[in-house]
């Protein structure tokens, strides 16, 4: 489905022509496990783009100022800062290794010259401060410019050190470490609109933190049963409402979403709203529950809607309607007849994320074979695009891809059996205001932009 490519279109998903902009990461066929990108997130302005990987590292890219002599070429993202956020740990009590993989990064709104973000692995959340240093002191008395100590007896005169400009240096320092609050694996963090608190969610519990306080957190949701043998449902994702600081949602492995109001009680085990779509009995199979498990939940920027991702579809919910979603978009329905094989090779447990564009008019999510899908909510059109090195010429337009579900394969279509299920796009991010998207394909980060005529 080729985009219309016209200028002046609203920021929809596929009235635009998406073009390759940049790709970051090694070209090797041999992918190092530690380099696999595990989270991607733009900051509030979109000038910074952070990625976390399985090796516990965070890489932040900064958008360059637009070039005045080439007004049509958008700013490129270049490396701004790289740091090791989490290290592998060993839990001695349980004799378990704690992975350093960064599960989520969330930016804080910028309040001064420095940037702050939260990064988390399975057990520990850290608040990082990223600040610039572009001056340094020169003219020390006790040491040379090279740093060598001067012999005090040789000093005949004193001088006052002065500040001189230097090459920009970006430093990342851990300002808070929020540890020991989660027995199970953290799957989500979400900064509250009050900019003072945030939540962290693991499989069975959700905790509320104050950004300044690291030795205490409040448990606000606990679904752990008294007898673990009775456990049939876990928390899969959680997020604060973008505007109402007392409201948050969490999704479950049974395909339900609960909206909770922290004003109603201290422990939000009783939801205010319960969102669940009744099951379609005609499509029920042994895999129905697994594929209904929600892997991601995201509020729209407006706060009126939320979007959930399950294995085969993306659903948009109106917060005022609990009994069914207002929109359902099929991501890769052709996989429905392959669920058994996907269960066998564990792909059925892959957790795909989803994201909104700035105006909430389009949504995006990933698939297999390095494909990702965009849905325009206004025009009801969708498109499948591919993140691959073959389409990596600068400003090359992305050609829409088509998957042939079965039978006769047309030219340019790819058959389901040829899909590479090791190339999965789990993490994508959309710039908060512009049509720039970041797509993580294993160890590579692709940045695409719309073509500006």
């Amino acid at each position: 489905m080729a985009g219309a490519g016209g200028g002046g279109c609203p920021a929809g998903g596929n009235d635009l022509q998406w073009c390759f902009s940049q790709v970051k990461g090694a070209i090797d066929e041999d992918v190092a496990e530690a380099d696999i990108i595990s989270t991607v997130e733009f900051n509030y302005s979109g000038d910074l783009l952070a990625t976390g990987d399985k090796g516990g590292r965070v890489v932040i890219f900064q958008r360059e100022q637009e070039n005045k002599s080439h007004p049509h070429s958008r700013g490129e993202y270049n490396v701004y800062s790289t740091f090791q956020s989490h290290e592998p740990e060993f839990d001695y009590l349980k004799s378990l290794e704690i992975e350093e993989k960064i599960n989520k990064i969330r930016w804080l709104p910028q309040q001064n010259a420095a940037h702050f973000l939260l990064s988390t692995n399975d057990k520990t959340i850290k608040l990082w401060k990223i600040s610039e240093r572009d001056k340094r002191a020169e003219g020390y008395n006790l040491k040379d410019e090279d740093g060598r100590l001067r012999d005090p007896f040789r000093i005949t005169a004193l001088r006052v050190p002065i500040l001189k400009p230097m090459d920009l240096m970006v430093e990342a320092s851990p300002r808070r470490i929020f540890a020991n609050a989660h027995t199970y694996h953290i799957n989500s963090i979400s900064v509250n609109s009050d900019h003072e608190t945030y939540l962290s969610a693991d499989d069975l519990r959700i905790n509320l933190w104050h950004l300044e306080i690291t030795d205490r957190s409040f448990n606000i949701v606990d679904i752990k049963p008294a007898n673990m043998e009775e456990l049939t449902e876990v928390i899969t994702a959680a997020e604060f409402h973008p505007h109402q600081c007392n409201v948050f949602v969490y999704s479950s492995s049974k395909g339900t979403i609960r909206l909770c109001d922290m004003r109603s009680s201290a422990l939000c085990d009783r939801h205010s709203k319960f969102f669940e779509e009744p099951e379609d009995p005609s499509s029920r199979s042994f895999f129905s529950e697994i594929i209904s498990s929600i892997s991601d939940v995201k509020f729209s920027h407006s706060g009126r809607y939320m979007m959930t991702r399950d294995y085969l579809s993306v659903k948009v919910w109106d917060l005022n309607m609990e009994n069914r979603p207002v929109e359902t978009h099929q991501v890769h329905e052709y996989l429905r007849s392959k669920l058994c094989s996907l269960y066998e090779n564990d792909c059925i447990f892959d957790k795909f994320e989803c994201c909104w564009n700035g105006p909430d008019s389009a949504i995006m999510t990933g698939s297999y074979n390095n494909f990702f899908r965009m849905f325009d909510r206004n025009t009801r059109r969708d498109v499948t695009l591919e993140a691959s090195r073959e389409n990596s010429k600068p400003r090359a337009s992305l050609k829409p891809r088509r998957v042939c579900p079965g039978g006769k394969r047309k030219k340019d279509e790819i058959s389901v059996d040829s899909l590479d299920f090791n190339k999965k796009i789990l993490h994508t991010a959309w710039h908060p205001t512009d049509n720039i998207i970041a797509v993580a394909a294993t160890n590579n980060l692709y940045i695409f932009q719309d073509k500006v005529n």
Partner: protein
Amino acid sequence: MFARGLKRKSADGEDSPPAPPSYSLQRQSLLDMSLVKLQLCHMLVEPNLCRSVLIANTVRQLQEDLSLDAAWRLPAPPGAGRGPLERLVSTDILCRSPWEQQGGHSAPDSGGSPAPDLCELPGAPSAQAPRSAPGCAWEADRPRGGFQASLDQILETLESRAPRAAEGLFADVDGPYYDLDAVLTGMVGAKAVPGDGFEALASAGAPPPGSSCKRDLGELDHVVEILVET
């Protein structure tokens, strides 16, 4: 699923297309596969809790389906005498709803159904799991919880293996996911489980005709024994 560009070969070279495996065989296959996945979960240090819960729920559903079959005394589904199930091919039959499949159950080829000795199961003391084996007149008074009992046994055993972790089955562990995949797809590296029990489970989807029921029960029992002893 398949390496890029690799085409699936046809199951055999005969002129007639190979018949898809029967519903009950595939369901059995799925059940065995799920048990293997659960079992492997607990061999790793810290399994993914969400995944474990989803697999355990699937096992319970399969168990209920098996029990329902037993209660309804379905006619012998064909398939035990069919071609070997060497691997779990793209089984869209399982991905369809059960009543679709039962509509297609009126198989004309029950002529090849296995020997009636499969029906002698009720007396077998070690029989744990209800199986709707071909031609088996399944007593309604067989304890319905037979399979549930063994599932619970597995869960309890695993809990006792990690006494510090009160959570037992779903103790928080943090394991390398890819190892599990390697084990499952390659069927290698079954460290703690004696080889023949593991492999027997894995190949349970392709039983020789006529002995599937007894053999599967024996294997499940074997697995439970292993887990109890560890």
